[in-house]
């Protein structure tokens, strides 16, 4: 992971010419804003403290007056998705925040029934590692398996982890994550928009201008995260604006304001990145091996994102692409191939006029 921040001057020079992909030290300046533009803002969504309350979804819908739809994006419909507590289903034209719910379990193969009492591992922090006289091997397995639960912060109050039953010990945990538009450094939607309806704001975010969009739908197929979509009865494309209207008035976005656990943190991207790095280090030191940052790496396929996440499992488990790449990274190669193909047509047709008359 690179430690370069989004506004770092260390990238000036050769790398700052990354117009189609790669790290970009100042997205707003790259988009043509004057030097005194505000610093790039973003979201840091720390899913380890998300409680799945959906306050962000409600706040977003209310603030932006988004219409009702079902989990497949059908307007005016209500329906059960069959996906845990998630009836929102996906991000789209009418859902700009989407809380995903993943119910997971794992077996805790406990060697001695007394240790396997419900909740035992919540209070026992495993101080007597290696003290299992009967089977040291089993003990190391046990400590590895319960290491997640031994995390100091999570052991006090952990909404995502509980142990059920003494019957072989099945642990249940909930993964909840509030997904949102990533406001990429290299935004595919912005790159491909033919009307200029999508634009980079002075805050470094990406916003659709409703009075310009003509509903061509190119942004929909260009987004590597499947965020933006066209609203059926309206015909235009819609997505999260990071509450551009609120930002210009010095307010925080509605979702971050409503979040009761600070799972959604809004602020200057630099600051959020530092905070996220610290949070990850804390979790790792507490033994949460599976914690990882998603979208933080500025050398990734989209040049890092403005809305990044701390996840507790693989990205695809949350419905996120594991290695997204902005499609325009390969555009020069495509134009080259198309130009060659076009020249080929002219060449073939011209040569077909040569030679024998019939």
């Amino acid at each position: 992971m690179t430690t370069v921040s989004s506004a770092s001057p260390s990238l000036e020079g050769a790398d700052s010419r990354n117009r189609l992909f790669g790290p970009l030290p100042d997205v707003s300046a790259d988009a043509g804003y004057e030097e005194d533009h505000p610093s790039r803002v973003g979201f840091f969504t720390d899913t380890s403290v998300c409680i799945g309350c959906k306050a962000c979804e409600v706040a977003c819908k209310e603030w932006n007056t988004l219409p009702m739809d079902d989990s497949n994006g059908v307007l005016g419909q209500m329906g059960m998705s069959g996906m845990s507590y998630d009836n929102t289903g996906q991000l789209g034209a009418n859902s700009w925040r989407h809380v995903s719910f993943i119910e997971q379990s794992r077996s805790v193969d406990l060697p001695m029934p007394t240790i396997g009492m419900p909740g035992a591992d919540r209070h026992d922090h495993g101080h007597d590692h290696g003290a299992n006289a009967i089977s040291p091997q089993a003990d190391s397995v046990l400590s590895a398996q319960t290491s997640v639960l031994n995390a100091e912060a999570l052991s006090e109050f952990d909404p995502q982890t509980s142990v059920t039953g003494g019957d072989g010990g099945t642990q249940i945990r909930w993964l909840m994550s509030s997904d949102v538009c990533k406001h990429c450094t290299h935004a595919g939607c912005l790159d491909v928009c033919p009307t200029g309806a999508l634009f980079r704001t002075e805050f470094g975010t990406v916003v659709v201008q409703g009075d310009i969009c003509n509903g061509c739908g190119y942004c929909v197929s260009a987004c590597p995260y499947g965020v933006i979509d066209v609203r059926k009865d309206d015909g235009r494309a819609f997505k999260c604006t990071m509450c551009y209207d609120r930002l210009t008035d010095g307010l925080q976005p509605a979702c971050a304001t409503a979040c009761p656990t600070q799972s959604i943190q809004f602020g200057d991207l630099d600051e959020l990145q530092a905070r996220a790095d610290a949070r990850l280090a804390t979790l790792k030191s507490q033994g949460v091996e599976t914690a990882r940052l998603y979208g933080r790496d500025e050398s990734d396929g989209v040049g890092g994102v403005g809305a990044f996440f701390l996840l507790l499992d693989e990205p695809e488990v949350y419905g996120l692409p594991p290695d997204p790449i902005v499609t325009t990274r390969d555009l020069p190669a495509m134009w080259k191939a198309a130009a060659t193909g076009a020249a080929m047509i002219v060449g073939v047709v011209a040569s077909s006029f040569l030679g024998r008359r019939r």
Partner: protein
Amino acid sequence: MTTPSSTSPDDAHLNGRSVDAGSTGNEPAGEAPLAAAAGGWHRAGGADLTQPKRRKRRKGGGGWGSGNREAAMVPDAEFSSYYGRQIVKTPTWKNPEVPLYLFLGGAAGTSSVLGALAEFTDRPTLARNAEYVAGAAALGSVVLLIDDLGRPERFLHMLRVFKPTSPLSVGSYILSPFSAFTSAAAGFRLLELAPLLKLGTKVLPFLPALARFFPGARKASAIAAAAFGGPMATYTAVLLSNTAAPSWHEVHTELPFVFAGSAMAAGGGITMALTPVAEAGPSRKTALTGVALELFMVNKVEHGHGLLSEPYHEGKAGTLMRAAKKATITGAAFTALLGRTRVGAVIGGTLLAAGSVMTRMGVFEAGIASTKDPKYIVIPQKERMAARKAGEAVAEDEARSVVR
């Protein structure tokens, strides 16, 4: 299926997987090995929720058409997803409007080049027909493209900016002059017809005075149109490839040549069908070269990309691609063997045009299908990450050995 308890393919699927996961005790069946690395967590409630429901093919490839062995050999890799839901959005473009647009753009592009060159090689009928085809197809393209917009009344917004990063923007600046020049060339042709000139004179009384300029203006328009003809035929491949639809993006260096070949087959075929054989020689040759290019490049698309080639074989896309190949090959055979007879030329040309339409529809459907299954996103991206990691490890190793 040998186990009596496995009554459905899905059961067999689960049983097969529980053997894999059996070593770790009472984990539910169907857990991907990946999950073990992630602290042993897996989705509660069994495997069927973790994986998208998909029918297992049991025939082992017997039901396939020609040349799909590669696709059949792609293993059904393990992967996680969010309730099997798709990750990228399915393009909102209308079907069949957009594939037809791809076809018309290709046919018009090739015809415009044919028309311009026929103007100066003493082939008046070929020039006339090619110009009519180009003009009509270009106008049809414009109508289809505007119809595809969510807000058609705002189609002129396409021209308020120029963005090289947006193939649709670049395409608008190709389509606009192309359709203007092709319809101008076709329009001057029409005005050279006496009854139509009479009709036009009723509206614009000065027309007969300008009549002597018509042939020159027509030729100039035809040349100008031909300059945009090639790009018109191939930019649409970039339009599709420059998306997050995995099976389109993956083939981004090959698709422009598929479309170029398909465009030559269509444009050559249509003008060949309409024109007396004595003048249609260039159309025949163009069509046949186009077919060769198309078949060669389609083969690369269909077999060169592992899992991401799969959508080109399966379902609706597979049916269309196979039908396209049959029509194209048959059309090419008619053209080559009977192309110097009028009947053979008409049959051959029609088949080539039909093949081109179906190629575009097949490619379109394949990309759509690749957005609907998360495996086409997750598995190739995971492989990409693993390859990168392996590459980094090798580089590190080399660096270390150099230091030593």
